[in-house]
């Protein structure tokens, strides 16, 4: 058999990248070069050195030596942050070696990670800029594209203001690009910018940060080794984060019981000691049900609660209502199971609590995530090795992009959008605040609460709602006009609900721009004829920069190959647009630009100068690169380097990495671990919510980090506090000048942080975690039925929120939808999730033949009972129809994996729409190998009341035989 002969990419005449930009695979390369791979291969250290190292065949006569290098990089699929060793010969990515000595993945990969080298082929990539001319894709040059798009955007800005353009960023950008993207939108003058975190873990970030300060995974994948019990709710790491299972199994094989709570018997559940199948959307009742047993039996950690938790009494009151009978009635889980799970968690401490989108993607997502946190607080599982809330994030850099990048509600580093926040960043950027402010719409708009504000200070439209930003009556939107242009910059629209309305919205736009390595569904869903552009972006293997894994570890990712075809890295495209808009000088004042390309390291240094809140200040390019070169020196459980150049540092300098680089903070491996000094990675809970509430102190009570000079709770540090404590004079003269009137977040000298940490104190204060978030619609997390619920009796008892006139600038419906009984016509509950082979909207992974071959057909999982009711048999095609009119034709997979009344669909497919194959609409040669219906064509309206997260884990549907 001849191995498949790959076509080299078509040569692009006249292209300046024709010579270097072609995709060449290893085979072609070997043939062209007439030489052998291997031979000179650098010996990898094998974990199982069970064979004598075979004598490498020396290169034969007449074979010339090739330049072969090993590049260390990081997988671009999920947020586990697996290290990759790429073999590159003469610029061609010829091999992929396991990074056995990488502390997070130890050489392991999932199907996606094991096939990233396909990026070097890139056969289905978008190859050059294209423009839709009367319905036909026409190739254009980059210059034409930037010029034409730029002119249109400027015209729209003039007519409808800067908020009429939506900049949809990406969690696939590296930290530098994500940060630059946020900065770009600021200079453009709008907060209409967002990225996928909104629809994946926004409710986590909001819920968790509002509980104890930071909204991120508290421990690490590796730290799970220390867990004595593992609880996973609404997560299927066996498919979504397979390499995390390496660490989970390690704990499990040490005796930690594994509990999986999921409506579906997932691949992860198959390995669990206990699987609890709850009714979708009843997380809060189930957690309260477990807590009921914990309180009933006195299993809670009273000392921990007394010292470090505020408001647990209010929780007790709510939990008392969730008797076992009531829990069973609402969740469908019998008392024995709930009791067993509670007992397991109580008897095996510390236990870790893992969740994913099964918990977050609900209209009550922010309640769910807080309930999870409260559960861990009650058991005293926080701030200890083996405990924590281990929130597995999604995309490779969704954590970094959330921390630094495109968010509708905040500037980099969660500074928010207040005037103070803007002034802080204006100072970091070295631009005049007034000038920056002038870039924004000057009018004020009522946004539902308080006084009317300028759009500069109000959250933009979130990514989950851009459709409404286009379709909603302009008078109802808290900005000047509708959205009139969308720039999809690394976003899969099929990961969003309400496709029929999305299609309509796309067609209504004045201008639609897609910037992506792949055309994505944005290129084909609509029937636009003109004013639509596709610009090819590079993948992360064609550039370099830092990337933040789920555990807050920041890693340096090296460039593997030169850019393919005519693609350009995102930061270069940003620069080109900035130049077109005329703010390039201001925006790149402290960032060098070489050949139109901003220098990545300069961008890193810039956010190092500004992101004090979350300690993104110590991770300089130099430190990150040094760690990358020495990743073998880090312990695989603690993630701490033992000896070597990084001695004592934690891998990836997990944020907060306090102070400036000179402080050499090692990073914080476990959040809120009081067992270590702050200087060595210890932390109390953050004093973020004031010092007292209704006369009750919010500060920690007798709990403090190791070596703290203040042996009790304390507020966050500012210049005033330093003076009161008599520590002010420990600042240098220069530091004093900069720190005067500032706090730990805004002091650009870093002096306040340095002095506080010098005294063993956390710059952000030492407070209690709070169980009651008084700013939220539900201060104590309560159960509310999903917007589309199959249980009318429950809707009566646990109704959702009232509709809101303005929420993230838009009218938002809750009760008015829930009040309608759709259940009679749509009796099945519908949920969605992941497949291991694909990621996100799947444009990238479905274009990788090694992955696409494994999942060629979109399907719906149906319980045999429901299948029989619908007259559908395994393998039949079936219509899945949703209550908002969307319908998709998919293959029926009849399985007991889903319980009666529940259907499940993966969300990675796209390229079919309501039975229609859209393959012909892709530019030639760029359609993914596998297309299929998007489940989100059927998924419906419904948004979280705090973050506008879409509700994709519960809706209704019915089945109809084709």
């Amino acid at each position: 058999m001849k191995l498949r002969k790959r076509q080299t990419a078509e040569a692009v005449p006249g292209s300046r990248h024709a010579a270097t930009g072609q995709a060449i695979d290893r085979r072609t390369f070997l043939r062209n070069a007439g030489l052998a791979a291997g031979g000179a291969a650098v010996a990898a250290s094998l974990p199982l050195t069970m064979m004598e190292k075979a004598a490498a065949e020396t290169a034969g006569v007449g074979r010339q030596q090739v330049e072969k290098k090993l590049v260390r990089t990081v997988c671009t699929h999920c947020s586990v942050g697996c290290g990759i060793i790429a073999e590159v010969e003469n610029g061609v990515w010829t091999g992929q070696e396991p990074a056995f000595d990488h502390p997070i993945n130890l050489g392991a990969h999932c199907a996606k990670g094991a096939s990233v080298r396909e990026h070097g082929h890139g056969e289905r990539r978008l190859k050059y800029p294209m423009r839709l001319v009367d319905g036909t894709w026409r190739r254009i040059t980059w210059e034409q594209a930037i010029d034409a798009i730029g002119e249109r955007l400027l015209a729209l800005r003039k007519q409808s203001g800067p908020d009429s353009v939506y900049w949809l960023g990406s969690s696939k950008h590296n930290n530098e690009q994500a940060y630059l993207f946020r900065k770009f939108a600021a200079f453009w003058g709008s907060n209409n910018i967002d990225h996928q975190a909104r629809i994946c873990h926004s409710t986590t970030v909001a819920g968790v940060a509002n509980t104890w300060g930071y909204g991120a995974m508290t421990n690490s994948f590796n730290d799970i080794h220390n867990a004595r019990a593992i609880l996973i709710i609404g997560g299927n790491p066996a498919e979504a984060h397979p390499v995390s299972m390496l660490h989970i199994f390690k704990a499990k094989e040490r005796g930690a019981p594994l509990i999986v709570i999921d409506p579906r018997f997932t691949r992860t559940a198959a390995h669990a000691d206990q699987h609890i199948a709850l009714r979708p959307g009843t997380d809060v009742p189930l957690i309260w049900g477990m807590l009921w047993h914990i309180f009933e039996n006195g299993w809670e950690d009273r000392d921990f609660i007394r010292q470090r938790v505020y408001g647990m009494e209010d929780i007790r009151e709510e939990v008392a209502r969730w008797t076992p009978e009531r829990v069973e009635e609402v969740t469908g889980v019998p008392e024995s199971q709930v009791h067993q799970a509670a007992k397991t968690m109580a008897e095996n401490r510390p236990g870790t609590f893992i969740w994913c989108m099964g918990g977050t993607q609900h209209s009550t997502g922010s309640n769910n995530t807080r309930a999870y946190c409260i559960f861990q607080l009650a058991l005293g599982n926080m701030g200890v090795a083996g405990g924590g809330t281990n929130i597995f994030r999604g995309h490779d850099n969704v954590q970094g992009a959330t921390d630094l990048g495109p968010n509708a509600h905040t500037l980099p580093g969660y500074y928010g959008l207040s005037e103070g926040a803007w002034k802080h960043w204006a100072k970091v950027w070295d631009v005049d605040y007034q000038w920056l402010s002038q870039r924004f719409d000057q009018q004020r708009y009522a946004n539902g609460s308080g006084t009317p504000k300028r759009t500069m200070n109000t959250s933009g439209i979130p990514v989950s709602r851009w459709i409404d930003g286009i379709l909603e009556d302009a008078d109802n939107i808290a900005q000047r006009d509708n959205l009139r242009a969308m720039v999809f910059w690394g976003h899969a629209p099929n990961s969003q609900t309400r496709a029929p309305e999305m299609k309509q919205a796309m067609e209504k736009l004045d201008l639609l721009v897609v910037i992506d390595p792949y055309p994505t569904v944005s290129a084909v869903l609509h029937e636009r004829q003109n004013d639509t552009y596709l610009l090819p972006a590079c993948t992360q293997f064609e550039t370099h920069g830092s990337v933040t894994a789920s555990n807050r570890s920041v890693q340096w990712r090296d460039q593997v190959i030169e850019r393919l075809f005519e693609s350009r890295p995102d930061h270069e495209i940003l620069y080109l647009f900035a130049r077109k808009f005329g703010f390039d000088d201001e925006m790149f004042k402290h960032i060098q630009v070489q050949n139109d390309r901003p220098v990545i390291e300069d961008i890193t240094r810039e956010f190092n100068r500004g992101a004090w809140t979350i300690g993104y200040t110590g991770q300089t390019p130099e430190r990150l690169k040094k760690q990358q070169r020495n990743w073998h020196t880090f312990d695989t459980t603690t993630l701490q380097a033992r000896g070597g150049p990084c001695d004592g540092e934690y891998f990836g300098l997990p944020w907060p990495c306090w102070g400036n680089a000179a402080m050499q903070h090692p990073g914080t491996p476990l959040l809120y671990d009081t067992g270590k000094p702050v200087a060595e990675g210890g932390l109390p809970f953050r004093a973020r919510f004031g010092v007292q509430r209704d006369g009750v102190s919010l500060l920690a009570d007798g709990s403090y980090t190791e070596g703290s000079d203040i042996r009790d709770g304390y507020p966050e540090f500012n210049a005033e506090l330093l003076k009161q404590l008599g520590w002010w004079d420990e600042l240098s003269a220069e530091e004093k000048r900069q720190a005067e009137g500032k706090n730990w977040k805004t002091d650009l000298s870093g002096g306040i942080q340095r002095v506080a940490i010098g005294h063993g104190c956390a710059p952000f204060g030492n407070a209690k975690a709070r169980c009651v978030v008084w700013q939220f619609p539900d201060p104590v997390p309560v159960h509310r039925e999903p917007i589309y619920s199959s249980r009318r009796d429950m809707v009566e008892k646990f109704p959702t929120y009232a509709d809101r006139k303005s929420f993230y600038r838009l009218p938002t419906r809750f009760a008015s939808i829930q009040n309608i009984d759709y259940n009679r016509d749509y009796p099945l509950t519908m949920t969605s999730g992941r497949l291991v082979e694909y990621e996100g909207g799947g444009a990238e992974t479905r274009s990788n033949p090694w992955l696409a071959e494994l999942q060629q057909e979109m399907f719906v999982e149906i319980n045999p009972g429901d299948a029989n009711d619908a007259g559908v048999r395994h393998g039949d095609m079936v219509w899945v129809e949703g209550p908002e009119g969307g319908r998709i034709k998919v293959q029926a997979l009849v399985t007991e994996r889903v319980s009666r009344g529940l259907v499940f669909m993966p969300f990675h497919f796209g390229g079919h729409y309501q039975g229609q194959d859209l393959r012909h609409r892709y530019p030639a040669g760029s359609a993914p190998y596998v297309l299929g219906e998007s489940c989100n064509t059927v998924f419906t309206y419904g948004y979280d009341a705090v973050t506008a997260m879409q509700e994709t884990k519960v809706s209704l549907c019915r089945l109809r035989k084709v």
Partner: protein
Amino acid sequence: MARMKFLCDDERCIECNACVTACKNEHEIPWGVNRRRVVTIDDGQPGEKSISVACMHCSDAPCAAVCPVDCFYTTDDGIVLHDKNLCIGCGYCLYACPFGAPQFPQDGLFGVRGKMDKCTFCAGGPEADNSPEEFEKYGRNRIAEGKLPLCAEMCSTKALLAGDGDIVAELFRERVIRREGANEGGRRQSGAPWGWNTAYRKS
């Protein structure tokens, strides 16, 4: 002398298919040919188990026994390889193999199958180690580079092990003992790894 074997730990395999794509990646395997696959039994039901399977490089290889042109050979490491120059594509190895390892690029009329392709334990074929000819026919020769099969090296949970049979078996045995210690009275673990009796029982 080392005797190379594969071992798949079904307590750890999560059907992530990394072994499948790692193989595709390393050897540029075309669409439709899969030297390795993961099979899940009792899919979606309690007791669900997944197992990664490919050529097991059997001690008494049935494929070799039935090949009419004697194109198989066993290396000193116990790896069962074949010579595509000799293979006539008759399919007998496919009939005989217990594991469904032999793959054919075609499935045409008149028995046209093309040359058989299968897992080489990343040890290439009879051509010079890592020559372009060898790569074209069999993929990369990692063994010659002193490395082990990529599927096992990249396994997400280290469920799939490859290497000297004695060492692999010892690793697995230790793991079983640890698990049994951890889950006293819990799920009992089987004594021999999956498929070993079929593949490696000495006749």
